[in-house]
């Protein structure tokens, strides 16, 4: 669906992207993960034919974005980081306008708008002015305008930016529901979000794809292992039981507020959850909780970026990057967004 070969984008003498090569297959949900200023938005804008590349080849559905932008645009639905919504229009009017703009036949207009409203669960606000909608609904309408013409490729730039935790869960479900019929490319700097939503992750740093694969593949390749957190009760030596499980590589006790409970972070070569539960139950240790540690992908990402940082010193020195807090999860999105960040992305 998408073939990118040696893509470069320069702003004056500053290289924002490049050399960047990647391939995305039809029906995949792929996450583009990178820090602010890594080149995510620039890459997506080039894919959406909003920006021309400085060099390289970008093809969507076999069509070159430079030679046939008009035809490429008909294949794509794009949600930029700020949803492009006319505040004075109602949701239904906006979707009708977006559909006509993208060549939906007038006979199918009502049906397509209805489908987009239902899929994004915006039927209840269909006849409200966009200016009166909450941020969460605006994001949904932004996605609705991107899919109203049933594009083959949906490109979403930071779709969960500024959403509250409930809206994030809903948005995650919505993005996942788009897979299959559409190829979906989602960008984010929220590690956990990409991990939850996407089939495959492209890690972008300094304008280049530095790694590609599923979360587990990336973790295995970098030797980060799979991390889980287990909470147990009782007085038995749970740590010894955990240590005896074959795949377990490392165990780290974590503080827990619950009286009588103990929590451990377990790092293993492969997903150890089934084996851990069996071993604990066999040893008579009460299992109070078990789950994947959210910081797993974060470790992978930090290692990748750190590895990249050692390579090209010249440009890195010129980037206005400040260190970000390590634990950016869905819950602290707002704080992450509010923080003064890094390099500005492409000028609009």
């Amino acid at each position, binding site marked *: 669906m998408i073939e990118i070969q040696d893509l470069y984008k320069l702003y004056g003498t500053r290289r924002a992207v490049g050399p960047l090569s990647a391939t995305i297959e039809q029906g995949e949900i792929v996450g583009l993960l990178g820090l602010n200023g890594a080149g995510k938005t620039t890459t997506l804008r080039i894919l959406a034919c909003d920006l021309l590349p400085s060099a390289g080849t970008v093809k969507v559905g076999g069509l070159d974005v430079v030679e046939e932008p008009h035809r490429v645009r008909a294949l794509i639905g794009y949600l930029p980081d700020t949803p492009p919504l*006319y505040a*004075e229009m109602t949701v239904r009017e906006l979707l009708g306008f977006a559909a006509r*703009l993208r060549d939906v036949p007038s006979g199918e207009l009502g049906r397509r708008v209805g489908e987009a409203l239902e899929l994004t669960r915006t039927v209840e606000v269909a006849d409200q002015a966009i200016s009166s909608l909450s941020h969460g609904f605006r994001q949904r309408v932004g996605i609705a305008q991107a899919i109203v013409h049933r594009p083959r490729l949906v490109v979403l730039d930071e779709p969960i930016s500024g959403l509250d935790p409930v809206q994030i869960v809903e948005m995650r479900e919505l993005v996942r529901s788009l897979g299959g019929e559409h190829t979906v490319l989602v960008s984010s700097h929220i590690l956990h979000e990409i991990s939850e939503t996407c089939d495959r992750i492209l890690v972008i740093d300094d304008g280049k794809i530095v790694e590609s694969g599923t979360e587990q593949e990336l973790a295995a390749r970098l030797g980060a292992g799979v991390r889980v957190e287990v909470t147990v009760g009782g007085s038995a030596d749970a740590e010894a039981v955990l240590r005896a499980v074959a795949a377990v590589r490392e165990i780290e006790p974590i503080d827990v507020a619950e009286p009588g409970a103990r929590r451990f972070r377990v790092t293993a070569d492969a997903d150890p959850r089934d084996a851990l539960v069996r071993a604990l139950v066999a040893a008579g240790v009460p299992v109070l909780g078990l789950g994947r540690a959210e910081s797993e992908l974060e470790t992978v990402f930090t290692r990748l970026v750190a590895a990249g940082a050692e390579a090209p010193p010249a440009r890195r020195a010129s980037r206005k990057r400040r260190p970000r807090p390590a634990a950016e999860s869905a819950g602290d999105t707002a704080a992450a967004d509010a923080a003064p960040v890094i390099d500005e992305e492409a000028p609009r």
Partner: protein
Amino acid sequence: MTKTWLVARRELGAYLRSPLGALVIAAMLLIDGIWFYWQGMSEKRLSAEVLQEFFYAASGTTMVASLFLAMRLVAEERQTGTITLLSTAPIRDVEIVLGKFLSAFLMLALATAVSAYMPLLILVNGKVSAGHILVGYLGVLLLGAAATSIGLLGSVLARSQVVALVLGALLLVPLVLLWLVARAVDPPLNGFLSGLALHHENFRPFMQGILELDRVAYYVAVTFFFLLASVKAMEARRWR
């Protein structure tokens, strides 16, 4: 053409739903009305002279109104990010520019049409021909189209509406004042500069009810030039 009209309809809706359109029309009518009363009712004058004065005033308010109507066309979309909806859709830049121009021009035409009661009063109570009124209005609309295209270029180049207004004015005012420069230079340059001036020599025949095709061609050419420049500026944006 379908998409041009689609963009134009959306823009017209935005004008009608926001206070800007109503404010601009109200201000135009107020100023034209005051001028008309002052020139037409305060002393005895020939009907044709009063009509000429009306079109003189209307030309000024039309140029200013054009800039105010055009300033938001692209700059506002860039400010709010909605330009992305257009720039990533299968619509050509020329269709976007024409649609936006058409909407502002139609708003201007609406405001101009509402002012028609003043020349009609002269027609009913005085001695002027309908042809004089029609030619005068043709001149006002042609001047309005040229000024709107200039304002639109300002809006394409600017990132905010205020800057768009200032840029539009910076392009428009020197074009209007070229006739003053023409008076200060020797022939044949003075004739050339005077012929380029947006108002003076090119608009006066319309005020007097004289239809000269070369003046019509001048305004069409100016409008075409600035619309073309707007399209090129939109295209260039994708390279930045």
